[in-house]
């Protein structure tokens, strides 16, 4: 499909003798030229729109506040003007006059890694079962998971907020972690199942005939073959947990020491006393792990997510 539009030859050249007829564009040629230009314009435009907020984030985080206020429209500053003071302020612990983002990042990391490990521990056997084993209620389970995915999370927020307030777990990272796992596990199973479906059953049967137990088949055959999907899934879960905001806000807002990095940024942005440049440095710090993980896993992720999408 690539290059289908390139090879269109112009209409046959006019014979040399008669005066060249007024050259008229056919509709086809006109469209080809028009869209060749439009295509470049669209790509460049989309790239600018997509990337500019990220660029702006990085730019402001590197400029001192007074310079930003003097000249808010500057779109480029040379390295000589860069100032890493905002990063220092944002990372310094709260006791020492900074904003304590290191603590927030540690909290986020605990929650995100915990969610990844727990989700995989629960979802891997589940996905294997849904993909491979025939048991009573398999279809119903799939429907249940789909429904979970479509329910408004704000609907869930009300009872969970009340429940965790009641049992006094609100404000604990463990409570938040369990909520995350319960929300993500359905999606995780869906993605992993798609992958297990592509692993040939005959391999597992061969192992079973050779005397492997069910668990042995899983451990020795299915899991190693599904490793790319498992890694992609782990990174996907990590990104969701790292980015999550609503439940972190509901559960942790009262205790600054437990804030996740997303929550910390949003809470500090609500006040007026912290300079914009410092918070931009905070935004960059929140975003960098995600961008690293995303570029490391982009291919795996997009394939995992859109598996089956070409079926319409």
């Amino acid at each position, binding site marked *: 499909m690539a*290059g289908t539009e*390139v090879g269109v030859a112009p209409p046959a050249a006019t014979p040399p003798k008669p005066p060249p007829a007024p050259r008229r564009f056919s509709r*086809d040629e006109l469209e*080809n030229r028009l869209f060749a230009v439009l295509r470049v314009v669209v*790509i460049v435009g*989309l790239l600018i*729109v*997509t990337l500019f*907020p*990220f660029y*702006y*984030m990085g730019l402001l985080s590197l400029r001192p506040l007074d310079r*930003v*206020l003097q000249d*808010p429209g500057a779109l480029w500053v040379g390295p000589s003007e860069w100032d890493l003071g905002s990063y220092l302020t944002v990372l310094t612990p709260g006791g020492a006059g900074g904003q304590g983002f290191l603590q927030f990042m540690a909290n986020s990391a605990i929650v995100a890694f915990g969610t990844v490990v727990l989700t995989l521990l629960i979802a891997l056997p*589940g996905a294997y079962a*849904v*993909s491979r*084993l*025939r*048991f009573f209620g*398999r279809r119903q*389970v*799939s429907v249940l998971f789909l429904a979970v995915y*479509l*329910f*408004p999370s*704000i609907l*869930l*927020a*009300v*009872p*969970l907020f*009340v429940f965790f307030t009641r049992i006094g777990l609100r404000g604990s990272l463990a409570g938040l972690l*369990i909520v995350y796992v*319960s929300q993500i596990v359905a999606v995780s*199973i869906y993605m992993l*199942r798609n992958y297990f*479906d592509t692993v040939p059953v005959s391999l597992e049967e061969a192992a079973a005939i050779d005397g492997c137990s*069910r668990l042995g088949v899983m451990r020795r055959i299915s899991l190693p073959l599904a490793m790319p999907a498992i890694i992609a899934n782990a990174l996907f879960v990590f*990104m969701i947990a*790292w*980015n999550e*905001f*609503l439940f972190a806000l509901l559960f942790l807002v009262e205790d600054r020491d437990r804030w996740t990095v*997303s*929550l910390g940024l949003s809470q500090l942005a609500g006040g007026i006393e912290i300079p*914009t440049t410092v*918070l931009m440095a*905070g*935004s960059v710090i*929140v*975003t960098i792990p995600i961008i690293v993980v*995303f570029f490391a896993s*982009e291919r795996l992720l997009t394939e995992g997510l859109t598996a*089956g*999408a*070409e*079926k*319409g």
Partner: protein
Amino acid sequence: MSVDVGAPAPSSGSGGAPRSDRRSGSGRTLQRAEARAGLALISPTVVIVVVMVVLPILWTVLLAFQRLRLLNLRSSGLFGNFTLANFEKVFGSSAFWGNLATTLAYSVFGTAAAIGVGLVAALALRRRFRFRGLVRAAMLLPYVAPIVAVTYAWKTMLSPQFGVANHWGTRLLGWDEPIAFLSQRSSEVSVFGWHVGVPTALLTVIAFEAWRSFPFAFLFLTARLQAVPSTLEEAARVDGATLTQRFRYIVLPQLLPTIAVLSVLRFIWTFNSFDDIWLLTGGGAGTEVISVSVFNSLTARGDIGGAAAQALVLAAILAVLIGLYLWRLAPREEQS
């Protein structure tokens, strides 16, 4: 399109089929062992989903029919005095209907814009060129980046005091004064002498929604485009069809089912979304969608019953809309 619809439903098992034919004793034992193993492996998931999702949703129904406030939470039991007061208050307040209209406008226009931009992006990046992989990856960034960070960047960009948008807008585009994109309920725009009220803040959050979620549509439409066979298009070109004609009659019909699915998914997610608007405007300036209003009832006013009732209504409206879609549109899709 008819080629693809008949793909086997993924849940109807791979490889299990031959085993069901075995009627011998050992076969049945094998089957039983398999069923036992399946249940054992799936049970942790079912337990956590039932305990943390299904039961809470059912509990919301109970909560919605009680007069419960955060203050008297400790003293009240699971089953209190049931009353319809919360729903009367919800349906009786003009604020709720306004919020519902805002939610619908936000989801419909946000979904349409996201899918429109996603489609344009997918088509523009269809042909191979250098760095295409990199450009594609870059276009997915808005969707994966932390919502708190990108909303903060947008808020700063659009700030009337030192935002870059207003700085260049007033200098280059001739704006008379800085526009408070996120805190202005509406502004007058004169088009050919007509003064039209434009809901500034709502349009801004819709634009943000389009920016944030077009990559999702882009990703899926790109995947679908890759599966479009090139032979059809080549044949059409030989027959003299131009670029737009080939798009209109060859490519678009093949994309429509994907667009339909995307519309439903994006609509559901936009309808339910809370973070974006909460972080951008806090629900002010005419952008208070229902989920933000639920959150405010719950935390600011501590009105658990009212929050639960609103959330239930939100879910019910969504269920009705999805039901309508499945009933009206899904059968037609099967035939096409």
